Each structure stands twice: as C-alpha cells, then as structure tokens.
C-alpha cells in the first residue's frame, strides 16, 4: 500500500548512507553496531589475564609461549540497533503556512525514511505516537514486513489536543530496558525545563537521542500584513493581534525558546536539528546521517 510520505527516489539515494549509533548498543543479535560487551568479531579489542572459568579455547597460546603467562585475547562484539521514533501528535503539529506541508507530515517523512534505512541495514525500528499521552506504540522489529505496520500507523496519526510529549518521553525512558536510538520529532511547544528533565532521563538510561525540532517558516518569520485572529490549534484559545506591533516581542520570545531547547539538547548530549518544513528532506537527512558517521571510518 503506497504512503504519501514515502519517497522511493529519496530512499534509494540515501540507501548508501549507514545510520550509525553514537553510543555502544545492546542488541539481541549480531549487527554492525558496537556493543559494550566483548564478542567474536574480527576486530581485536584487548588482552586480559586468564581467570578460572574462561573458555580455554580463547587462550592466546603464542602469548603464553612468549611470556609463560595465560592471556585471553578479546575481540569487539557487534550488535544490532533498536530505534524508537517518538512522534509528537499534538494539535500544534497540524500547523502549516500556505504552500507548506504540516509539521506532522514532515515528521512522517523523516521517521519513515529513517525507519526504512534502519530496517534495510538490519536494525530494528519502533514507533511511539504521543498526543496528550502516549497512545500508540509499534514495538521495534528488524523484519521488512514490520515496516508496513510502521508506515500504516504513522499514516493514521491525526494531530489533536495538547502535547503529552514530556510524559511520553519519561514513559519511554522507563520502558526501554536496553540502550536504544531514540529519535524525537516535535515542535517542542512545551515547558523547556520539563523537556530538559525528560531528555536527561533518556540520557541516564544511556540512550542515543536525536531531536528533530520542526518549525513552520511562518512561525519563525511571523510575517503578516494585517491584524489576525489567532486560534490555538491545541486548546482553541483566541487572540486578536496586530502582528506588526508585536513582531519584535514575538521574535524575541521565539529566539529565547529555540536557544533554550538547543541548550537542553546539548546538556543531554542529544543530536539537535532545527528544521523548517520548507527545507528539502534529502539534504537534511544526508547531513544528519553523515554527521553521525564516526570520523575514523571516513
């Protein structure tokens, strides 16, 4: 079943770029991502002294011949990655300025593209949708067939109500037992202090966090030429204002907010991307993925 937010051409172009984890992952099966444990990959890790109980097959006999001591030769373990896409589906994500797509649609495109790339490289991708609470979850899976469920769920999301992103992040932090790659797609129109706490919670659980901060160009530019009656997409609050008169104050408040969100992301060692919905997706994802590739691998 075709989905409007999946761009096959884009996916084929990005197919050569791997999605790397920036922290060691703890997967269930062998994969291409570093694990905190020693394993059986071909990459040498270290020597350590033999202790009773160690598998004698892993003794380095050549080292014993040279030093007359027993050493165990250890190798890096490679495991798979489990990614959780947390999509904010509050009412504010339904905003779009004339000629632009909604923020939720942009989020769908990012999440679906990254999920496809992850599954394609053998990693698992899961989905969490939150409105005023965490209400839809697709557990991570590596199977290709799982993607259809992922996309279908994503396509069904209808933004409404107030945001419950903070509670959702805390829930996810508690729920995911092993290290994972958590990708959050939201406009973060919430309390930034609470957001910082939630990110710190995820950080405490040693997850690799990426934030896609989605904003509409009009929300940043605030370019209006006449008085407007603004109706809140989340709670229906109405404000009649003359944008020309309040543009400066609006810009100042917005600037403070963006700086605050960026600072919270930085404090939690999260990867932060401020994205306007008029930005082409390919360069955005290419830049995102390239930045995650460890330098040594270049």
């Amino acid at each position, binding site marked *: 079943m075709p989905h409007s937010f999946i761009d096959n051409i884009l996916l084929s172009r990005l197919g050569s770029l791997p999605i790397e984890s920036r922290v060691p992952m703890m997967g269930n099966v062998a994969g291409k991502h570093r694990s905190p444990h020693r394993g059986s990959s071909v990459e040498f890790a270290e020597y350590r002294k033999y202790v009773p109980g160690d598998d004698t097959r892993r003794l380095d006999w050549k080292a014993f011949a040279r030093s007359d001591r027993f050493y165990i030769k250890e190798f890096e373990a490679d495991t798979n990655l489990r990614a959780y896409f947390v999509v904010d589906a509050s009412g504010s994500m339904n905003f779009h300025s004339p000629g632009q797509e909604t923020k939720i649609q942009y989020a769908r495109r990012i999440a679906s593209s990254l999920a496809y790339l992850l599954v394609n490289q053998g990693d698992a991708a899961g989905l969490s949708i939150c409105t005023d609470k965490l209400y839809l979850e697709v557990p991570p899976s590596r199977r290709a067939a799982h993607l259809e469920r992922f996309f279908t769920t994503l396509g069904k999301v209808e933004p409404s109500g107030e945001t419950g992103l903070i509670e959702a992040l805390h829930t996810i932090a508690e729920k995911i037992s092993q290290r994972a790659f958590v990708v959050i797609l939201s406009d973060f*129109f919430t309390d930034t202090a609470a957001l910082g706490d939630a990110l710190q919670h995820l950080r405490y659980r040693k997850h690799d966090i990426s934030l896609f901060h989605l904003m509409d160009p009009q929300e940043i530019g605030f370019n209006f030429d006449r008085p407007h009656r603004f109706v809140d997409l989340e709670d229906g609050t109405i404000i009649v204002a003359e944008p020309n*008169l309040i*543009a400066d104050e609006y810009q100042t408040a917005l600037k403070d907010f963006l700086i605050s969100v960026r600072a919270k992301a930085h404090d939690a060692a999260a990867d932060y991307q401020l994205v306007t919905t008029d930005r082409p997706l390919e360069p955005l994802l290419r830049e995102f993925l390239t930045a995650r590739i460890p330098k040594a691998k270049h």
Partner: protein
Amino acid sequence: MTFLSPFLLWFLAAASIPVIIHLLNKRRHKTIQWAAMQFLLKATRESRGKKKLRHILILTCRALGIAALAFAAARPVVSGLVGWGAGTIDTVVLVLDRSASMELRSGDGQATKRELVLQKVRDALTDLGNPRLVLLDSASGKAQEVPSPDILAEISSTAATHSTANFKTLMTTAAEYLSRSTGRSEIWLASDLQLSNWRPDDERWAAVRATLASLHQKCAVRILSLTGSAAPNVGLRLVGTRRLADGLLLDLELIRSEEDRGSISLPLTINTNGARSSETVILPGQSLRFQKRISLSESDATGHGWISIPADGNVRDNTAFFAYGPARSIKSLVVATPGEAGDYLSLAAAPPGFEKQSVERIDPAQFSNADTSNVAMILWASPLPVGANVQALERFLSSGGQVVFLPSETPSPESFLGMQWGPVTLAESGKFFILQDWNKTDGPLRDGIDGSPIPAERLRAIKRSSPTGDAAVLARWEDGETFLTRRIVDRGTLWFVSSIPDYTWSNLGDADVLLPLAQRILALGADRFDSSYLAEVGADGTNLLAGESRTRIDDYAAENSPYEAGVFRIGERLIAINRPLAENDLQIASKDNLDAMLEGTDYRLLDQAGQVGDSSLSTDMWRSFLLAVLFFLISEAILCLPIKSTATSQKLVAAK
C-alpha cells in the same frame, strides 16, 4: 495667515483618512489557526508603550502630511506684518512717515525707504485680499481712504516731503479714526524710527495708549521699522542766520551718517539772489558746524538764496534755503542791583557804536513786570530768581531767549531748573584764579572764524562762585573749577558764569572775555527775531492766512506744496522754509523706547521691513507646507522601518 484658495481647505478632512483606514483595518482581521501560541501570548503581553507610541506617531505623521498638503493646496500667505495668528483683516490704517529722513535711499541706492515700504505694503495688502486701506500720512496728519493699494505709490498723499513726523499725534488720530470703524482693524506704522519723530519722553503717549485701549475691538499695531542699511549720505542744515551791517552770517552744519568714516571734501554751491558761487568744504568727521558769511550791498535790503551740496543718499537734505530782510534792533536786559558789575554788563550788551543794540537795566524786583518779548538776552547778576520771576524766565527761555546768570555778593540757596550757585570762594592771598581751559570750538569763547583765539587766559579772579547742576561745562579755572556752563532749555539757553565784572571779584570787566561772551550769546538770542524770514516746514508761520497765496520764488526747484522746503512769498511775507533741524537726527528709537511708548498695546516690531533683499512683507507659504509634507512622509517612512524584527528573523534563520 490667509489663504488664496480657501475652498481647498475642505481637503483638510482628508487628514482623517489614515485614522479611518487604521480603524477599518483593525476590524477587518483574518482568522488563522496558530500553533506557536505561547510566544504570541508573551509578545502581546509585552507589546505596550513604545510600540503603541510609535504606531500613534506613524498615524499622526500620515494625518499631518495630508493636512499639510491640503494647506499647501490652499496657497497660504503669511504676512510679515500680520504674522501667523492673524485671520481676516477688515481695515488697515497705514500711518506713513513722509518726513525728509524717509527719503534716504537703501543700501543698493535704488529706492528710498518710503518707496520701499509703499511697495511692500501694497504687496502685503494684495496678498491679504485687499482689506480696506486708510492712509494717514505724517505731513497732512489727515486720514483718507485709499481705494486700492495699487495706487498707493502714485497719490500725492504718499509723496516725498521736507516735513517731520509726530507719531504721537498720528497714533491718536489713527485710534480716533478706528473708534468710529467696525470690524477687525490694524494700525501699520511705516517709519525709520527717527527718535525725534517719536519723542518717547512725551507724557502724552499715555493718552495715546489709553485711546488705543478704549477701542471696542482690540487693535494690533505693526511697526515697519525701516532701519536697514542705507546709502552714504551727508545732510546740510541751516542752524540760523544773522544779519550783519554788511552781510548775512549763516550758521551751517554738515552731518554724516555714523557708518561713514574718514575726511571728505564737499563742493558747496551758494546761490544768493540768483548769483551762484561755489567753494569746497572739508568734512573731517561725522559733523561740521561752520559759518558762511555772505556779503550784501546797501541796496540788498531783502533777498534770498540757497546753499546746497551734491546729491547723495538723501536728496532731501542737501539744500538749505535762506531769506533776509531789514535788520532789527537787538535789546538786552541787565537784571542787577546798582553797582560796577551792572555797568560793565550793560556795556558788554550794548557797546558804544552798535546802534542796533540797546540795553535796559532793571532791579530784580521789577523783572516780573518787564516786557521780554523784544529782548534777546538777559544778564542776571543777582540772587537766583524766585516766585513769579521763575515762570517769567522759563517762558523767556522757551521762546528762544538767552539767560546769563552771574553770581552775586549775597549767597542764595535757591535753584533754577536744577542749577545752583556754590559757595563763594576767595583766592589765596597774592594769588588769582586763572582761566585755563575753555572750549575753543563751541560756545561763546570759541575761536573766531579766522581761527584767532579769545584771550581768555587774561582773566584773573580773586573771588568766584561755581555753579552746580546738570549742565555742559565750557570753561574751567586752572584748578578745575567751573567758570562757564551751558544748558539748553527748550529753544533757549541757560548760561552760568562763575564771576562778575567787579574789581572785588575779577577783571572780567576788562572786556577780553566779557565782550565776546556777551556779544555771541546776544547773537544767539537775536536769531529768534530773524526767524520771521526763516521757518521750518509745517511751522505755524508757514500757514496761509485768509486771502493769502503762496508763491515759490527761489530757482532751486518748482514744487509749491505746503510740505516743500524753499523760499516762498506767502502773502506779503518773504520766508525761507527748511526741513526741520531734527530730521538730521541720527538717533533711532530703541525697542525699549517703543515698549515704553506702546506699553499694553498689541504691537509688533518688524525689523526686516527695511531690508533691501526682502522684497515683500508677505510670503507665499505653500513651499513650506510642501516641505512639511515631505518631512512627515519621511518621518513616517523612518518610523515604519522594521529595524529590529528583520534582524531577529535573520538571526533565527541563521541559527538553523
């Protein structure tokens, strides 16, 4: 301010358009679903004060810009005379100074002050929509209505004259005229502010102010001050004439404007009974007073003539006219108690051989009954007058008489016109008071016409009494004490001499000092009798009596108007009429003088009226209003510049 197209002022209503658009815009808002509400709420809370003020200023600029455009279209005219606050004027009373000093040409030498101000008044009145114009000229002193300001310069009532002006009287006439008229009126005074024309010390200005204040509608007074730069000018005036046995002695004075410096040589043309001669006079400074003696034969019992200098900045002050007739006897009065002093004084007043001079000697007690109408000089060697004598002497002085006071043996505490005698002092034994310092160019001890000095140093005194009071000192003793003082009182002069011709006092009787002193003062006193041949323009003696006609008999010019200088035969009288001496007065009425004279009236002094470059008293103001439009539009544009918001937006985009 008036408008040449007042109907266009209806467009002022268009100034409300920006406000109306603003209000409509406020109501015509568009509904939009919005996500970033938290910033909008915060911005709305914080957007107060400056922003609203800025918005109001923008609206104000737009409204004022349109209003200024409407004003410019209505062609506003602001008169330098009327000013901004004025509306429509119904009547303008133009008080025009036609005195001789108004004929001084402006700095460029093109037009006289009178011509210049007439032109400006005409333009101003045209710009103001031709209100009713009433002309009150200084020569006739009569108000007349002028049908159109265009003919102002052509009518005889604005022509040049040799007369003087009396603004106090003119203002009274103007106020009386306005008391009979209705509507909004103004008095415009066009004058060069010559102090002698205004006489600020005259107490009758209070009456003028009261008359102005009593007008049923408040009347504004605009003074067109014509005190701007002027062309170089030298004025010639005849101070007096004196008939001698074999000729005529003319006292002349050349006066130059204060700006001119250096010595100049002036050719003097003298015309006596049609015979012309010329000579050159050197004017070393600002003024020169000199005498010109004209020889007359026995047959020249009566005659006339004129003296002139070349035409310059003011052609009306370059000629002086004179006339003469049979010489009259000159009588002096010696008021002294019997004694040596009285004898010497009588001799000095009427020396032997001077048939035309006579003297009468009386006691002070008889003075109040004495007839002084034919007296030229009074020598008073008695205690200072008291009682009726004071009034009699003051009347004598006012009519042009000369009074010489000398001390008496009896000290008197009285004073006369603020002058008093000091104590009698005696010289040290074996020593004298010697006259040392006296004015050699002015006063009765001046050098002779040929330059020979008077031997005044021969005067010795052993007793003296110096005068005290406000008077000019003309001679001093060697110790600095005063010997001779002079004080001008109206047309006459008051003299004080500090010693008497008595051997117990001094050798004043030796005639070295007393004779020239008495004879020169006597000559001054005799001038008032020669005035029957000499008069000023506008003086009572120049008026025609019943049955008389006026004929000009000199060959200098042909004008025969009552305000012209010249030699005229009025009835049987021969009279030389000159412009008033005060017309050469260089003093200008100051702002303080005007404030004092017109205190309490709504008067405005316009200094620019006399400037050559300022061609009009009214200014078309539409350019200024267009500039105002430009200013408001630029201000609006600057206020509309989105300075801060653009910068913030750029920063946010850059942050991506």
